[in-house]
């Protein structure tokens, strides 16, 4: 009898616990990171084993946390990958919106500048037209710099967000270490289900910041590692992450892990997950290429205009000056350099410039150069000519001295219009030509073009005189000295002296003369305005693209990579949902299931209570018999 009562009591207790467990599940149906729990019941063997022996009821063996380390790990990994891509996508979308915006994009400004140039060409003596041209030059420079400023401020914002995310990683790591300590202390005692859930949740948060690897220890602790397996949490110990400025890194910053005086660098390329991975990928794959290409475009456009403008003539008869100011190439010396030597960079050919920085390392008299955009290497003794740059040494560097050369970096930010007076715009050609009025022949001469703007004789007046129908002399008309005599004439052949070049075609006659001299002043010529406008058609970028093509290609590059990121982020979010479903399939709470359990356990509880009642009845019956 007592065994019936005893069994019923164990049943009552067990199902009470079961109902409690169910209630815990129902209560936490919406708790983030909660793993559903299940009660494990064991029947109790009879105290003595013989035929007909009856067991001694039921026992609560354990309240099990339904959890699978691997499916949790997959959720963490998928979430880390998705967050990285999503962070990158969100930042790239801003650049995407920036580059083609009607009000902010470059191509309308370039078109307006060109239109103003041609209006000036149609009406070179109008002060109003010059004023408009100066205004659109200002707008062009502003557009370049405001676009670059927008990019820089995005870079700054990313740096700030990265900083705060790193702090969060550090704090979360401390919490994980603390939970590790509590779990190992409790050891085999059990009852750590909720703490473990909490720890998984924290690890998930870290994974959303940076990709982290987990290693479960036998003592119940979980160790965390980031980057190339560099540990962040071991049992209850932690290390810290930090970000330090490092000029030799492409981003100008380096991620480090460590503590006290011991720090090691984290490789940017293996830090691919979480929002920090997203920031790094954005800076490397979207922001830097955009900045580099924008900077190169600014340099090529501004310096091309400057060069042509310098070969033109202003209304007052003097030659044009630089139209735009652009900063020169930048050299950054590594703080680890042991000598005080530096590099001096000159740009030799704008059309060969590449959208990249260069890392230059000195060793035994040679320079070893790596182009960062594609890792291409060059080496040789200074001065070294690479991609339109001439890299020369300034002083004697020590072996291992490292420099970063940036020709495009912040060019666009610093672009500004130098001209302030509309009368400083040189719309006229440097050189004009006069055909002798009494020329007996009917030969025509092409407008001389300037081939060497620095030639000292460029501005002297030169006469080409035909000494016979097929020979000519070239005479400096001021000094009277002959530059050449009795040259034989071929129609249409280039005639080049003093930094200019022209062509005479047709049939000249003895006595014909042509005078090439600085453009007459005051001039209503528009030749230089047209030459400036023609720059738009020059294959000035990398020798293969016009400036408009380059901008179109940049816009399309940004659009293309944003779209790719979008596609990838969508794919990753599907993977994440799948991983979450898999984890939930095991660990998630299903209210319907809990309802069934609740009803099942209640019924069992009621049944156990009924057993007590039955035992009581039996007992009463027995008492009645005995008392009679």
């Amino acid at each position, binding site marked *: 009898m007592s065994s019936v009562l005893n069994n019923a009591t164990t049943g009552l207790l067990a199902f009470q616990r079961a109902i409690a467990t169910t209630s815990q599940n129902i209560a936490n*149906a*919406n708790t983030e990171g909660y793993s559903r729990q299940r009660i494990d019941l064991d029947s109790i063997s009879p105290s003595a084993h013989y035929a007909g022996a009856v067991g001694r009821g039921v026992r609560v063996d354990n309240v099990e946390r339904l959890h699978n380390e691997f499916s949790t790990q997959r959720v963490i990994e998928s979430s880390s990958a998705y967050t990285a891509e999503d962070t990158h996508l969100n930042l790239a*979308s801003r650049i995407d*919106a920036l580059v*083609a915006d009607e009000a902010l994009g470059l191509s*309308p400004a370039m*078109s*307006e500048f*060109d*239109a103003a140039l*041609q*209006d000036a*060409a*149609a*009406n070179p*003596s*109008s002060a109003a037209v010059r004023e408009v041209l100066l205004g659109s030059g200002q707008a062009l420079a502003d557009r370049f710099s405001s676009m670059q400023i927008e990019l820089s401020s995005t870079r700054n914002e990313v740096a700030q967000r990265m900083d705060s995310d790193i702090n969060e990683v550090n704090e979360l790591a401390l919490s994980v270490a603390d939970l590790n300590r509590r779990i190992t202390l409790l050891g085999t005692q059990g009852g750590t289900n909720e703490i473990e859930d909490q720890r998984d949740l924290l690890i998930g948060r870290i994974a959303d910041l940076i990709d982290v690897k987990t290693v479960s220890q036998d003592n119940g602790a979980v160790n965390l590692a980031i980057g190339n397996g560099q540990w962040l949490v071991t049992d209850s110990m932690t290390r810290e992450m930090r970000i330090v400025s490092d000029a030799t890194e492409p981003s100008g910053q380096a991620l480090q892990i460590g503590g006290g005086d011991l720090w090691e660098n984290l490789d940017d390329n293996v830090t691919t997950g979480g929002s920090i991975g997203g920031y790094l990928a954005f800076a490397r794959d979207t922001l830097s290429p955009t900045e580099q290409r924008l900077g190169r475009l600014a340099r090529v456009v501004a310096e091309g205009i400057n060069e042509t403008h310098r070969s033109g003539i202003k209304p007052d008869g003097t030659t044009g000056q630089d139209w735009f100011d652009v900063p020169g190439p930048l050299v950054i010396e590594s703080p680890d350099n042991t000598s005080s030597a530096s590099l001096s960079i000159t740009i030799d050919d704008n059309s060969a410039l590449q959208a990249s920085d260069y890392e230059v390392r000195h060793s035994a008299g040679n320079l070893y150069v790596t182009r960062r955009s594609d890792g291409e290497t060059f080496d040789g003794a200074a001065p070294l000519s690479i991609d339109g740059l001439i890299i020369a040494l300034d002083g004697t560097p020590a072996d291992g001295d490292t420099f970063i050369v940036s020709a495009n970096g912040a060019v666009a930010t610093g672009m500004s219009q130098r001209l302030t007076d509309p009368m400083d715009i040189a719309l006229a*050609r440097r050189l*004009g*030509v006069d*055909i002798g*009025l*009494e020329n*007996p022949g009917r030969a025509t001469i092409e*407008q001389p073009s300037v081939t060497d703007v620095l030639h000292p004789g460029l501005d002297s007046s030169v006469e080409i005189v035909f000494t016979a129908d097929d020979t000519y002399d070239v005479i400096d008309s001021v000094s009277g000295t002959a530059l050449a005599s009795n040259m034989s004439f071929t129609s249409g052949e280039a005639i080049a002296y003093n930094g200019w070049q022209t062509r005479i075609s047709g049939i000249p*006659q003895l006595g014909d003369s042509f005078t090439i001299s600085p*453009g*007459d002043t*005051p*001039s*209503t*010529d*528009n030749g230089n305005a*047209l030459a400036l406008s023609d720059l738009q058609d020059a294959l000035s970028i990398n020798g293969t693209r016009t400036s*408009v093509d380059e*901008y*179109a*290609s940049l*816009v*399309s*590059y940004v*659009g*293309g990579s*944003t*779209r790719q990121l*979008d596609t990838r982020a969508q794919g990753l979010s599907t993977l994440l*949902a799948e991983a*979450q*479903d*898999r984890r*939930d*399939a*095991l660990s*998630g*709470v*299903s*209210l*319907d299931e809990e*309802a*069934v359990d609740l009803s099942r356990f209640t019924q069992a509880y009621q049944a156990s209570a009924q057993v007590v009642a039955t035992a009581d009845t039996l007992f009463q019956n027995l008492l009645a018999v005995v008392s009679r």
Partner: protein
Amino acid sequence: MSLRITDTGLNRQMLADLQRTQSTIAETQLQIGSGSRINKPSDDPGAIARLVDIESTQSRLDQYTRNADAAESRLVLEETAMASAIETLSRLRELAVQANNDTMDDAGRTAIATEITERLGELYEAANARDAAGEYLFAGTQGSVRPFSPGNLNAWNGNEVPRELPITLNRTVKSGDFGADAFLRVPAGNGTFAVSSNPGNTGSGVIDAGSLNDSASFTAHDYEILFTTANTYDVVDLDTGTTVIAGATYTAEESIIFDGIDTYIKGVPAAGDSFQIVSGEQKDIFSATSSFIDALNQPFTNATERASTRQLIDNALSSFNQSLESLSTVRSRIGARLQIIETSRNENDAVNIQLAHTRSDLQDTDITEAVVRLENQSTTLELLYKSFERVDSLSLFDYL
């Protein structure tokens, strides 16, 4: 084994579906609202590059049309100036013919001279014509300096640097002509050679402007016809010193032909009289007119003086004819350019229409398709709401 379905999973799924559908609806709405299916580069990275190119080309085409307008307004003014110069010259030629009439007396010639002086002013006006911005049209790129000034006949202040403007993607047009071509570089005489009589002649012989009768044997040398007696003459090539014709007998108005040149002398030359023929000379229109005025103002009393005046009037007549030809050449050049401008404008329009078409193909939202899409997407959303309501209201607890 099928996966266990959990309430959080179900809700997450539902939420994701709702968000996705709502974002596609937002996108379709933006496409309909903006009329453009590309609202940022990532919407179609390939098309955006072409759009940037097309927009840049379109803005250039608009500019070319403006350039064409600017060039046209200058050329029309040039044509007007040319037309007025041609009219003036035709009148001058008429007056020269009139003055050459034997019945014209001194007073009549002086009257003509007065009119011609007026006409010369008109000619200067035409040659110094200006455009709307006040630039001289026939001064090359020296447009702010008056190119021709009376009293300084040969001094031209212009230059021969063309003023060009692009008017299509691959064509430029000159929006100005050189005054030198129109007014200064006029071939003297009949265009090939010019004749003159020696001012010291004592006879009344007058040499005709002549013509080229055989270009193959024409040497472009200078010649002198020298009367050795009153009725015999020699023709000497002044360049080589050789005598081309020796001792020919003079008959009035009979052709004198040598080295491709065909001319004649009329009147009564005296022994020792000479006539010159020079080749390849050029004479500007203003000095030709001035010397015509001088000739008209020269009264004559005898046959010799009369012959000399006649010779001058004859020569002026030739000059006017040549000038008319020069001006007409320049005028037809201007006409041709105006025509090119018109053609170019049409070409630009055609290209622009083509580009606008391509652009619209690339960029514009197909409204019908978008509206149908929006309809479908809204239906999906509605169904999602309904199914959410249904699923959410299901709970076993309701049945316990």
